[in-house]
């Protein structure tokens, strides 16, 4: 769910942002810090705004300068930025996870289904992210600002000629994207764990989602994130090994054979690899991705 | 297959070629035959689809329907490099060179495949005499000898246009497509370019898009007129000049008034 939110922003901005997951992390840390002072609810609003401001500064004084050196430089810039943000987080909050917790008021079980408890906080997260996505969609497609933003992304020169400040639009879009990533961090940081490694953990999955879904396709990204989520959840639940599978097929492997060790891996152990495998397969079968329209 | 008939005589033959971008029909059933060895000009108002037609012939875009043959063999929807290896070379309306290579390197790159060096990494490029000589010859021809070591991206516009033509002709392809080679040039630059084009396409087949009517009537053996994605007339310069249809659709408004 989280990564789908991240991905949507990705595609919207056109600029591939390596540091996006870092802004997600910053969101979590800012929420933790402001939460200490003001409590969770104000932090829910403050932290994304702060992240947005950081994003705006990044665009204004960083990305915009490297833009003229081309895509590779942009990519490298965000890559370096991810490095620096991670280190700055080390610097300020240390290497250990910080104690960023779900607020008491939401820390109860909403309902119980098939013996699994469904926590209220997850529902809350779901509501906020879906709400956010819907309003984003509406703003982008139904309002004048949205039209200007979309036009600026596809035909910057034209929009500039019409008298809009395109660089400002870019900056705001970038800042908005960062703020959304920050919001995801605020919501996800306490559900999972807020630590310097969290950006890395999310970042690469987001990438897979974008590639599988197809560059620049919102719907594709959405489907891909659901697909990957499903595959992972499903495979983690399967505690079968390849040996068992072959047993079903009537092949018995001697536990002394050299193949044994390799094949005794259970499917749940392969879970971390599956998304990437899916991505590689996708590239072979359909280089554009699920819903991709653009080449390169 | 009907392509077979045109085998010997036609360097290029297009049969009912169509192209749509989404819902917009840009090329609407073009039939065109370019005789081997002739200089053929393609004229027509802006947006008629001339560059698009070039892109279809050279494999940059796939056709929506129809077929294209080069020297009798079918090249419809083949990849650009495959078409190029069959002996068709093209230039671009918008300058399309290798900006960070030197002028000399630009030209040398353009002859490597033809000379059979392909992807070799076992030979030193500087030891390839034929590639060097061929590149030098082209360099001389396009008049950029004293720009030899300059980065292509640093050339003036006219020089880049000359290099664009140079890259196109360097390989010695026998069918050459030039897309507005003199666009944006001054009078004297145009004259030099025309002189160059007529010299380097000696004995070859040339298809070129050109807006300058002086150039067209000077250079072309035959002319085709493309309007709204259809060839409305094809013939010798004299025939085209006389054609009622063309005068109505095109020349009447364009030649009297100022061009563009």
């Amino acid at each position, binding site marked *: 769910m989280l990564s789908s939110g991240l991905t949507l922003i990705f595609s919207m901005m056109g600029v591939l942002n390596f540091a996006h997951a870092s802004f997600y992390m910053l969101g979590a840390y800012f929420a933790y810090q402001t939460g200490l002072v003001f409590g969770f609810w104000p932090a829910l609003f403050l932290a994304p705004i702060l992240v947005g401001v950081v994003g705006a500064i990044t665009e204004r004084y960083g990305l915009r300068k490297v833009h003229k050196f081309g895509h590779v430089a942009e990519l490298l810039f965000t890559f*370096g930025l991810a490095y620096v943000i991670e280190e700055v987080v080390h610097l300020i909050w240390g290497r250990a996870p910080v104690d960023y917790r779900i607020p008491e008021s939401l820390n109860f079980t909403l309902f119980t289904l098939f013996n699994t408890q469904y926590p209220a906080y997850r529902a809350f997260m779901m509501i906020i992210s879906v709400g956010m996505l819907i309003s984003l969609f509406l703003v982008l497609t139904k309002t004048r600002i949205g039209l200007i933003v979309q036009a600026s992304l596809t035909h910057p020169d034209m929009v500039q000629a019409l008298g809009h400040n395109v660089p400002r639009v870019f900056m705001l879009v970038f800042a908005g994207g960062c703020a959304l990533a920050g919001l995801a961090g605020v919501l996800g940081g306490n559900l999972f764990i807020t630590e310097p490694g969290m950006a890395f953990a999310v970042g690469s999955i987001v990438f*897979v989602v974008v590639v599988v879904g197809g560059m620049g396709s919102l719907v594709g990204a959405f489907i891909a994130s659901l697909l990957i989520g499903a595959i992972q959840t499903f495979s983690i639940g399967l505690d079968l090994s390849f040996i068992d599978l072959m047993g079903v097929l009537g092949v018995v492997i001697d536990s002394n054979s050299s193949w044994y060790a390799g094949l005794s891996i259970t499917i749940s152990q392969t879970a971390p690899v599956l998304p990437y495998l899916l991505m590689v397969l996708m590239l*072979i079968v359909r280089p554009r991705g699920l819903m991709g329209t653009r080449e390169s | 297959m009907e392509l077979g008939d045109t085998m010997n005589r036609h360097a290029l033959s297009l049969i009912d070629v169509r192209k749509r971008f989404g819902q917009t029909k840009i090329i609407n059933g073009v039939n065109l035959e370019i005789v081997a060895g002739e200089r053929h000009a393609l004229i027509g108002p802006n947006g008629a689809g001339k560059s698009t037609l070039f892109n279809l012939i050279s494999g940059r875009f796939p056709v929506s329907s129809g077929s294209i043959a080069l020297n009798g063999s079918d090249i419809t929807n083949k*990849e650009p490099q495959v078409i190029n290896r069959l002996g068709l070379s093209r230039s671009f309306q918008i300058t399309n060179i290798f900006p960070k290579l030197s002028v000399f390197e630009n030209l040398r790159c353009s002859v490597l*495949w033809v000379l059979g060096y392909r992807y070799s990494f076992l030979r030193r*490029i500087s030891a390839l005499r034929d*590639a060097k000589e061929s590149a030098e010859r082209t360099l001389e021809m396009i008049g950029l000898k004293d720009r030899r070591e300059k980065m292509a991206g640093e050339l003036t516009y006219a020089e880049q246009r000359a290099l664009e033509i140079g890259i196109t002709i360097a390989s010695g392809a026998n069918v050459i497509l030039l897309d507005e080679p003199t666009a944006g040039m001054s009078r004297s630059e145009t004259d030099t370019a025309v002189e160059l084009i007529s010299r380097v396409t000696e004995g070859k087949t040339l298809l070129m898009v050109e807006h300058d009517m002086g150039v067209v009537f000077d250079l072309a053996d035959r002319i085709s007129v493309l309007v709204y994605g259809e060839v409305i007339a094809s013939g010798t310069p004299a025939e085209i000049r006389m054609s009622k249809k063309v005068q109505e659709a095109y020349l009447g408004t364009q030649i009297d008034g100022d061009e563009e």
Partner: protein
Amino acid sequence: MERVFNKSRLILWGSVALVFALLPLLFPGGFALSMLSQLGIAIIFALSYNMLLGQTGLLSFGHAVYFGLGAFMTAHAINFVEEGAFGLPISFMPLVGGLTGLVFSLFLGFVTTRRPGTPFAMISLGIAEMVAASALMFTTFFGGEGGIVTDRTAGGAVWGVSYGPQVQVYYLIAVWCFISMALMFVITRTPLGQIANAVRDNPERTQFIGYNPTRVRWIMMSLAGFFAGIGGALTTINYEIITAESLGLMASGNVVLMAFIGGIGQFWGPIVGAVLVTFLQSALSNFTQAWLLYFGLLFLLIILFSPGGISSLIAMHGPLWRAGMMKRLMPSYVSALCSGGVTLIGIIGVIELLYRGTLLVGVHVAFTWIVAGFLVLVGAFFLRRAIRSVAQAWEDLSPDLAKWS
């Protein structure tokens, strides 16, 4: 100019070989030797990376995959030698690594090079993740957390070379480093190398001169994988242990830093980067925990202000040097250097205070903070002015320079 091995170039390569040969005599200490060995490996790795980024325009975030796989395969090969399963002198083990890198990059490159630009970067990252995740899965081959341990003396002594002492390992690395450097240089001077540049600049146009850009990228990537694998094999021999970290994202990111900081526009740029980064890394990491931050900042600075890296900064001065105009730049450079130095000290002060501030107590802390902050502000103020005067000095020079050349 036209020949690959003309006289001055032969002299240059000769002196490189000489330096490689003499270095251990100048720095015989244990630390220096292991440092030099590391440098040799880093140079191979960074140069092989630049075959992708600098020469073909492929931004890969997964180059360590080929380095690491080469390293693991070498470790197993050495262990096989030890078991007597097959015989290959340790001196030629880098070939095992290289071939492994080649095979994998042929295979994976076929998938990844189908799309250039940003998609390529993402896919390379995805593949790197996949391999890294698999490394934790297939413990038989990758040895899990502990990695694979080998014994480089397994082959016994050949002509008195047993690879017991570090200095022998250094020379092995030096020889392979030299060979790889020379080969990679020569490749830049071949039809393939030239076309790779063309593909980097304008892939579409290469199609219209008969080339298939995907094929060019694929071949370049395979060759780069080969040299990366050689580097990996040398790492295995050097450390006698190899863990999954060596093919991870950190390692891939590191080589991006090296190549870019050094400069991807010149052949020798990545060498500068490899030396600088490796050296600073091991030097800085002894002094401060924040060394990664310093690297990140250096990297960002270079992207923002000198995207050609250090080597292009140096190369930029070549014509001036020859024209004898360097001294006209000196005053502005000196002032930039001084103010830059002050700023740097101030920034370092702030960063280090953040890291260790809690360890100190009392007036000291407040005082140091004030000093550091003051240095940053003052330094930055003068640095701005100095940068402007440098730009001015360059501008003043350019008409004269144009005349001279």
